[in-house]
């Protein structure tokens, strides 16, 4: 009897053994499976996740902003920071000769573009699978996401020339078999253009949310892609032909946008928080503060670019070059000093009052003795710079804000703001129109466009005053009046004027290098820049641009290895 009692006791305690297999079913907590996301509401969220990729950034993780790739390599700015070793990869970009194909920063940049592309492909495959009757905005969202994907591919194209094209129909396990030379250079451009075209044809004129892509934004980017693609290159990156048909379409598209956008009355409005998303901004990355993230979704492209004074503190990157600053000088007619600008160095606030200058200089560059970011009581000093012996005394101002601006925020120990960053602005669109017209031989139609930018610049002096209200520069800028203040408006002269205007208008915004490569003059321009600039900056002693190689970055060696040598390296590397 007692034995029986013991056995029952034992058996009762052994019951849990029967729990068996279902006991090991432990569901992941707080995660969704891919199937959960295929509802209309969740697809909208995946589209937001794709937009979010535009603003996800970190200066050490393959920066989105263009200045390290576009300004440092074109003679518009020096790297800055605490010596040539600080963010050393940018020094390698700036000097060209030490850059190797196994550079880790380029590997991260490549990877991060594909992180963005993967988000767009993920959203697209879900959108495609959804029925339009249940999802009325299906085509609109598809167009938005294809636009975003094309933007990321555009970035890869201008940096690396040949990249693998992955779309939403490719299976993840097949990605490793897709080569970067599966499509030719021309085909890749055509594919990018096709995506923007689809977007332009299928998007509404206006969207409920400002941050969404609409028809006009897509048309602008289509024009940009057509413009770049019009200058056809051979495999050695030489420009061998200009496709006039594409240029004509550029002109038509840009003209079509004239009703949708216009230039702001003061150039400054493009670079201030309070006037962001204005009538001149076409496509901008939307940033925010006080949004429940750790420090806010800030512009990491500016995170290193503040000066060293106590109101800010770090880190002194992105110093405009002496060559760039000098280029803002004008002659007594108010036109650029095309040939002699670099014979005279503008160094400080006194020089700004002594020599004729284009007012856009004071909007773009912080110069010792002059107000910082339009505040006459906040004077920029040489001591605010990080390492003047190596990098000089100038700093870039377009991307920064004043410390009392509500959008200014710390992201310890660095700082930036939630000011949106324009990827396309209407002045850029006008310059494309002018460029296309000039290359089509219609330079007379380009003259008023260029002049409209100069007129706007001439009127943008209200904020450029000192504490007494006097102007902080001897502003002298005039429109081109052929036969009056400048020679005849030939195609050559118009081209020269247009290229100069681009340099001044978009200075420090990361466009210059890609312009030089597009025009096929990168080798000539960059090497002649080094020839004079190395007398000013000792670290440039060995710098040299190698033709038919440095127009594009090398395909990251790490990826070539991952692909089991399926990827092919760019010419010259």
């Amino acid at each position, binding site marked *: 009897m007692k034995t029986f009692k013991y056995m029952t006791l*034992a058996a009762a305690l052994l019951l849990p053994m029967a729990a068996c297999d279902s006991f090991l079913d432990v569901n992941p907590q707080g995660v969704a*499976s*891919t199937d959960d996301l295929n509802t209309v509401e969740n697809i909208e969220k995946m589209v937001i996740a794709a937009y979010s990729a535009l603003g996800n950034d970190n200066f050490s993780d393959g920066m989105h902003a263009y200045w390290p790739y576009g300004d440092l390599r074109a003679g518009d700015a020096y790297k800055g920071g605490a010596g040539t070793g600080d963010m050393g990869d940018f020094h390698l970009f700036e000097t060209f000769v030490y850059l190797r194909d196994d550079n880790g920063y380029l590997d991260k940049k490549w990877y991060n573009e594909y992180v963005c592309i993967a988000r767009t492909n993920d959203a697209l495959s879900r959108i495609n699978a959804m029925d339009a009757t249940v999802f009325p905005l299906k085509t609109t969202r598809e167009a938005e996401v294809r636009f975003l994907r094309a933007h990321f591919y555009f970035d890869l194209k201008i940096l690396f020339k040949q990249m693998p094209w992955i779309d939403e129909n490719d299976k993840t396990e097949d990605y490793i078999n897709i080569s970067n030379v599966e499509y030719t250079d021309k085909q890749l451009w055509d594919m990018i253009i096709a995506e923007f075209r689809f977007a332009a044809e299928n998007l509404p004129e206006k969207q409920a949310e400002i941050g969404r892509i609409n028809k006009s934004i897509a048309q602008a980017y289509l024009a940009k892609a057509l413009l770049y693609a019009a200058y056809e290159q051979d495999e050695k990156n030489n420009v061998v032909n200009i496709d006039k048909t594409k240029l004509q379409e550029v002109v038509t598209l840009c003209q079509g946008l004239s009703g949708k956008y216009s230039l702001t009355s003061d150039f400054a409005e493009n670079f201030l928080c309070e006037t962001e998303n204005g009538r001149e901004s076409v496509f901008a990355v939307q940033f925010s503060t*006080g*949004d*429940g993230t750790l420090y806010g979704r800030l512009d990491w492209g500016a995170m290193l670019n503040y000066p*060293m004074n*106590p109101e800010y503190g770090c880190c002194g990157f992105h110093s405009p070059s002496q060559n760039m600053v000098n280029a803002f000088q004008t002659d007594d007619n108010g036109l650029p000093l095309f040939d002699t600008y670099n014979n005279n160095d503008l160094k400080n606030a006194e020089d700004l009052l002594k020599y004729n200058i284009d007012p856009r200089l004071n909007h773009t560059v912080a110069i010792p003795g002059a107000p910082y970011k339009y505040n006459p009581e906040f004077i920029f000093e040489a001591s605010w710079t990080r390492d003047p012996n190596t990098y000089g005394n100038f700093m870039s101002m377009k991307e920064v804000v004043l410390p009392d601006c509500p959008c200014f925020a710390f992201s310890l120990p660095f700082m930036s703001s939630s000011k949106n960053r324009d990827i396309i602005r209407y002045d850029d669109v006008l310059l494309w129109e002018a460029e296309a017209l000039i290359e089509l031989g219609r330079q007379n139609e380009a003259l008023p466009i260029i002049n409209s930018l100069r007129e706007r610049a001439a009127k943008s002096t209200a904020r450029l005053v000192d504490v007494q209200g006097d102007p902080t520069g001897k502003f002298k800028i005039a429109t081109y009046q052929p036969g009056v203040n400048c020679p005849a408006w030939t195609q050559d002269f118009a081209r020269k004027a247009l290229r100069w205007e681009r340099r001044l208008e978009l200075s420090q915004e990361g466009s210059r290098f890609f312009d030089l490569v597009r025009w096929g003059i990168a080798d000539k321009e960059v090497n002649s820049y080094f020839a004079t600039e190395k007398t000013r900056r000792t670290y440039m002693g060995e710098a040299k641009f190698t033709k038919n190689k440095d127009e594009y970055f090398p395909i990251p060696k790490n*990826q070539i290895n991952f692909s089991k040598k399926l990827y092919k390296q760019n010419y010259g590397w």
Partner: protein
Amino acid sequence: MLNAEEYGLVNFRAGVNDGSILNTTTLSNGQPNTGMNKYTYMYDVAWNNGIPTLNNIIMPEFLDVAGTPVMRAGDTDWVKEISRTGLMQNYNVTVTSGTDKGRALFSVDYYGNNGTVKGTYFDRVTARINSDYKLINDRVTIGENLSLSKTRSSVISDRTLQEGAKNIQSIVPIHSLDGGWGGPASNMSDRQNPVRLIEDNKQNHEDVFRIFGDVNLTVDILKGLTFRSKFGIDYTGWWKRDMQKTYQSGFMSDKTARLNTYANYGGNWILSNTLQYKLDLGKSNFDILVGQEMLKYRLEDMSAGRDGFLLENEDYMYLSVGDGNLRNGGGATAYALSSFFGKINYSFDNKYLASVTVRRDGSSRFGANNRWGTFPAFSLGWRVSEEGFFEGAKNVVSDLKLRYGWGMTGNQEIDNYASYGLYQARYFTDPAFNRDQGTAYDITGAGQGELPSGFVRTQLQNPDLKWEATTQNNAGIDFGLFNQMFTGSVDYFFKKTNDILVKPPYIATIGFGGDRWVNGASMENSGFEFLLTFNKKIGEVELNISGNIASYRNKITKLPEDVINSYAGNGNDQTILGRPWKSLFGYVADGIFQNQEEVDAHVGQPGKGVGRIRYKNLNGDNVINDEDRTWLGVEDPDFLYGLNLSATWRNFDVSMFWNGQVGSHANVNSIKAFTDFYGFFGGQNYGARLLDAWSPANPNSTIPAVSANNVNDEGRFSTYFIENTSFLKLANFEIGYTLPKAWLQAARMQNARIYVSGQNLLTVKKGWGDNAFTGVDPETPDFAYPVPRAFTLGVNVSF
């Protein structure tokens, strides 16, 4: 001190173009360069035929931030400022009582450790209550063990402080002129003041409360048949309130006070039931055990934060009173394990021993198809010394046993949800080091406020994921000689591991969340160990010496395509197949370029120059690139050994433990990057080794010339960063005294011993020859927290 303008000084910057000669900007008319900072270091350099000579260093009186002097130049020994003698205390009181029906134990333990880095500490109080009771004719025993502990420890990481102390320059003072904190001046790198970090983190701590225990039942059902059941729990609750104050430290500052609060709770319960049957049939003895065990683990966590506080102290800073930037998050994780096992132990005549075990283990971490694995094992033993034929040899070989075992075990140490494809709704991640991986976006252009967000893929699924299995063979001999004066053992093992679980890196085009756990490579391990002990009583001295030596080898035997990038090698023709797992793969650093002829004679190496490292051209082409990498050695040691000497004489006891290893190597890149190079990180502090760097006047140095940048990419992994970490250490030395019986009885004590010991007293390292060790402690090379030298005083008393 001469005025700068009078002296005509040169402002120094280590600006380099070709890497070998330090450039300076020259003056005109002896006037300082208008762009320079007046208050930074002044180096008086004379140029003789292009060779600079340092005449004098004029120390500035003040350091400035943006032209304004804010600190007096100091001479701070930062390592000293953050260090202290650590103190560890441990007090334990245990009381026990018992009758033949029940026993109880109560103990209280306090452990406190103030680390060798200021501001780091760990305190723990533990209470233990164990008891058991016999019922029903002593056939049933019910018992419980319960331990409750409360821990409080510092939050500031000792690693952060040690890194901070090595990074910040010694000219930076601890405090600024106005009594605030010192910090980097304008031309220095953004590095934190570690003394400030200690002070500003004083109020931060993390608290853990843990309850650990079990309820157990033993039932003697029949003679030899016992049933045991145990239900155990292990739960913790963890809380951390991390307050970050505003500060100004040189040019670095944060003008917002921030609070982040974290909490989690969870743990596991475990239930095990076993039935044991012992059968004694004269010479044969059986011991049979069958049982099951199941475990469920769950942890739930939460975090929240706010910024902007009126008062910055711990009495005020709570979430509710923060001004803004409200943020929060939380989640959970869980896993379950279930096992069934059976074991039979058999011994015959105490001479022949055999044991067979079978386990069937299931884990929730694997795909539904592969949850379970079966793991058998057996072992055999033969006490040869008990054999009849061995009688004669017994006075020499007093004990001899042969053993052999074979078994399979499984490994499931992977993420809890490793087999699932995962998407997470992720608003944001911390963007400090990598870009934000969140999905929020200001689509409305409002510039602030709550943002819409989405989902991000974090893992690809693998429903075929299964147990990693290791099969092990070991054979051994235990012996005793001369009436157990010598005892020892020799062991040999051979292990094969299959389906090793890894999460390999993947090609970039897959994007984020392409991680996927897979079963991959196979590996073999083999080794031997030899142990010998000597025991003898010589007069009143009882001597015990024991030494051991061991060696092991490791080899990857199977390497599938999809895991090739988880291991060293170039992912193509040079792979780890057939090599040890911890192989080192990289470039061969082949000396320093002594002159321009050597530079020109070498093949294309971007960044090469006089005074720079030359990398060997291994494949005979005309360029140095990642095809010039090869296998540079193995981290594992050739041998490990230990020696323990102890002796007792009357009431004294002495013991000494030496240990060491031969032939091990380590990658010391993390520390050597700071001691040997300037150009990797600009504007901070560097190691003293850099003063001995190569220059035309110092051509025998193995350290490359000082350079402000790193165009030669000398941080690449090469033989330069491989150091031999062989060592011999006196790890422990202890002297103890047991109080004589007479004194004990007088004080009603059962036993009392007092002892003094030292740990880590002596280290011999290989500081000569190839791959000489340049660090501090080869046992903890690179940047691991060093093993401190410790002295302990202890007392054990029992009543």
